[in-house]
C-alpha cells in the first residue's frame, strides 16, 4: 500500500510535468509562428481544437462517465459564449455593437478592473467573465435538470436537445435585443487574437496560449473529479442504477452534480470559443454542433478523457486543415477535377469517419487512457501503480 502511494505521487508528477512542457511548447509556437505563415493553420487548429477538446471532455463526463445521454451541449455553450461576450464588450464599442438596440447591460468586467489594476486587471476580468459564463450555464442546467433528469436514455436526449433549440430561439428573439443583440452578432469583446503579454517593451503573443491554457486547466479539473469518489459514484450509476442505489448512492443528487458540472465546463468552452472566433452568434450554436462534439467523443472513445482530446484535435485538424486542399482542387499533389471542388472535402471527411467507426468500434482509445497504452508492456507493477 505504501509503495502504491509513492508510485501514485510519482505518476501525478510526471503528468504535471508533461502538461507544463506542453504549455511551454504552445507558448513558444505562439511566438514562432505568425498567423499569416504557411503553418499558421496549426495555431488555428490548436485554438479551436482545444476548445472542442474541452467541450468533448465535458460531454464525456456526462455521456461517458455518468451514462446520461444528453444532447443539450450547444445550448450551454451558447449561454457561456453570450455571457462572456456581454460582460467583456468595452463601453465605447457598446453602441456600435448594439446598433439596432439600446444596450441594457453596460458593464465590462475587464475594463472596470483594468482601471484599478492595469493589465493584470484585464486578465483577471477575462478570468471572472469565463467563470461567470460557466456559472450561468450551470445555473440553467440546474433549473432544467430538476424536471429533465427524471427521464432516461433517449427521452433525456430529446428533452435536452429541445432545450438547446429553445435557448437558441430565445436568444435570437428581438424583444431580448437590448441584452442579446437579437439575431445580430456580438463582437469587439475580449478576444484571443488581442491577448498579448508585454515584458520590457517586447510584445509576446498569447492568442493560442490562452485558449489552450483554459482548456488544459478545465480538463485537469474534470480529470480530478472523475478520479474522486464522486467520479466513482458516477461510473457506478452508469453501470447499474439499482445496485448504485443499494450502495447508498443518491441517484438524483449525483446525476444533478454530473449534469451541472458538465454544463459549467460547456459554458466555459462556449466562452472560449467566442474568444477564439472573435464573434458570438446564436445561429452558430445549432444542434449540429452538439453532434460534432458527440462525434469527437465517440471517435476518441466513450469514457476516455485522453480519447476525447485526441478525437477532437484530429477532427478539427482534418476538417479545417488537412482536407482544405480538396476544396482548391489540389490534394497530396493530385489535381482534382472541377466537380470535386467546394464541398467535396466534407464528403471525403464523412467517408473517413465511417471507416474509423467501422474499424475502431469503441473509438480510438476505447475506455482506456493514453498512459495505459504505454504501461501494457510491464503488466503487474504498472497495474498496481494505478490504485
Amino acid at each position, binding site marked *: *500500500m505504501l509503495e502504491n502511494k509513492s508510485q501514485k505521487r510519482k505518476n501525478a508528477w510526471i503528468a504535471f510535468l508533461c502538461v507544463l512542457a506542453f504549455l511551454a511548447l504552445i507558448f513558444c509556437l505562439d511566438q514562432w509562428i505568425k498567423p499569416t505563415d504557411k503553418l499558421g493553420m496549426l495555431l488555428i487548429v490548436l485554438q479551436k481544437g482545444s476548445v472542442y477538446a474541452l467541450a468533448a471532455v465535458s460531454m464525456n463526463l456526462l455521456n461517458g462517465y455518468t451514462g446520461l445521454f444528453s444532447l443539450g451541449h450547444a445550448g450551454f455553450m451558447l449561454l457561456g459564449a453570450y455571457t462572456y461576450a456581454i460582460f467583456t464588450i468595452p463601453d465605447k464599442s457598446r453602441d456600435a455593437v448594439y446598433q439596432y438596440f439600446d444596450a441594457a447591460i453596460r458593464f465590462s468586467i475587464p475594463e472596470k478592473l483594468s482601471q484599478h489594476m492595469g493589465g493584470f486587471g484585464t486578465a483577471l476580468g477575462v478570468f471572472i467573465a469565463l467563470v461567470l459564463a460557466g456559472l450561468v450555464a450551470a445555473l440553467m442546467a440546474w433549473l432544467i435538470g430538476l424536471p429533465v433528469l427524471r427521464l432516461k436514455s433517449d427521452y433525456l436526449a430529446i428533452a435536452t436537445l429541445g432545450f438547446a433549440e429553445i435557448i437558441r430561439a430565445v436568444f435570437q428573439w428581438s424583444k431580448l435585443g437590448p441584452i442579446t443583440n437579437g439575431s445580430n452578432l456580438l463582437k469587439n469583446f475580449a478576444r484571443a487574437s488581442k491577448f498579448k503579454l508585454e515584458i520590457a517593451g517586447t510584445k509576446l503573443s498569447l492568442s493560442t496560449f490562452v485558449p489552450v491554457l483554459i482548456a488544459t486547466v478545465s480538463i485537469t479539473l474534470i480529470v480530478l473529479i472523475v478520479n474522486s*469518489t464522486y467520479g*466513482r*459514484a458516477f*461510473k*457506478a450509476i*452508469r*453501470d*447499474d442504477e*439499482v*445496485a*448504485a*442505489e*443499494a*450502495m*447508498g*448512492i*443518491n441517484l438524483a443528487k449525483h446525476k444533478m452534480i454530473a449534469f451541472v458540472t458538465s454544463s459549467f465546463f460547456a459554458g466555459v468552452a462556449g466562452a472560449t470559443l467566442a474568444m477564439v472566433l472573435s464573434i458570438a452568434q446564436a445561429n452558430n450554436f445549432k444542434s449540429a454542433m452538439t453532434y460534432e462534439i458527440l462525434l469527437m467523443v465517440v471517435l476518441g472513445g466513450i*469514457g476516455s478523457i485522453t480519447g476525447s482530446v485526441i478525437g477532437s484535435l484530429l477532427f478539427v485538424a482534418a476538417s479545417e486543415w488537412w482536407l482544405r486542399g480538396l476544396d482548391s482542387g489540389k490534394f497530396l499533389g493530385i489535381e482534382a477535377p472541377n466537380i470535386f471542388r467546394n464541398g467535396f472535402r466534407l464528403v471525403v471527411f464523412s467517408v473517413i469517419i465511417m471507416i474509423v467507426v467501422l474499424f475502431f468500434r469503441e473509438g480510438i482509445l476505447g*475506455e482506456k487512457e493514453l498512459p495505459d497504452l504505454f504501461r501494457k508492456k510491464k503488466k503487474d507493477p504498472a*497495474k*498496481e501503480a*494505478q*490504485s
Partner: protein
Amino acid sequence: MLKIDNLHVSYGGIRALQGVSLEVPDGKIVTLIGANGAGKSTTLRTISGLVKADSGSITYDGQEILGMPINKILEKGIALVPEGRRVFTNLSVLENLRIGAYLRNDKAQIEKDLQWVYELFPRLKERSWQMAGTLSGGEQQMLAVARALMSKPKVIMMDEPSLGLAPLVVKGIFDIIRQINDQGVTVLLIEQNANMALKVADFAYVLETGRITLTGTGRELLVNEDVKKAYLGS
C-alpha cells in the same frame, strides 16, 4: 433484532405482500423460501428502502426504519446483495469494493476492512485490477457479497445468491455465508434452492403469494412433509 410486522406492499394495484411478519434475531441466519412471485425479493427490497410499503412496520433494534431513505438504512447497518449480482461491470474489483464503502468516511478502517474482505475472498484479491464484468459468475457473486460487506453491515440480506451458478460454486457460496455469520454478521437469505438454505439456516419462513404460511427452525422445515413436497422435490 430486525422485526417486520404486518407488512403490506403493492405494485400499482398488484398486492405483492399481504401482511408479512417475521423476525431476524441478531447473529442468526434466517431464510425465506418460496416459489417465484411469492414476494421474497419484495420483502428484501422494502427493508432496504428501495420499495415503498403501503402499511406495516419494520423495526431494527426497536427503531422504526420503514420510510427512511436508503442511505440511512444502510448506515444503520442493513446491507443488500441484490438479485442477479449486479456488480459494476466496467469498474475494477477494487473500485467495486470501494463503492461498497461509499457512505463511510473512516479511511483507515476502510483499508482494514478491505484487507478483511480480501482475506475472506482470496480470489478477489488476485483479481483486484480486473474489470468486474470479466469475472466468472461465482466470482461476481463473491464480489457482490464482498461489496455489501464493505459497508460494515450488522445485517446482510442476500437475494438468491445461488442464482445461475454451478452446484459446486453454490456450495462455496454457502460456505461463505456460514463464514460471514461466524464473524457475527446476521444473515437474511432468500433462496429457491430450499435444500441448501434450510440446512444453513437457524430459522426459516415459507412465503406463499404474499403471506407467511409456515415457520420453524431450518431443521424442522427440512423434514416437514409440505415443504418437502412443494420445495424439496421429494
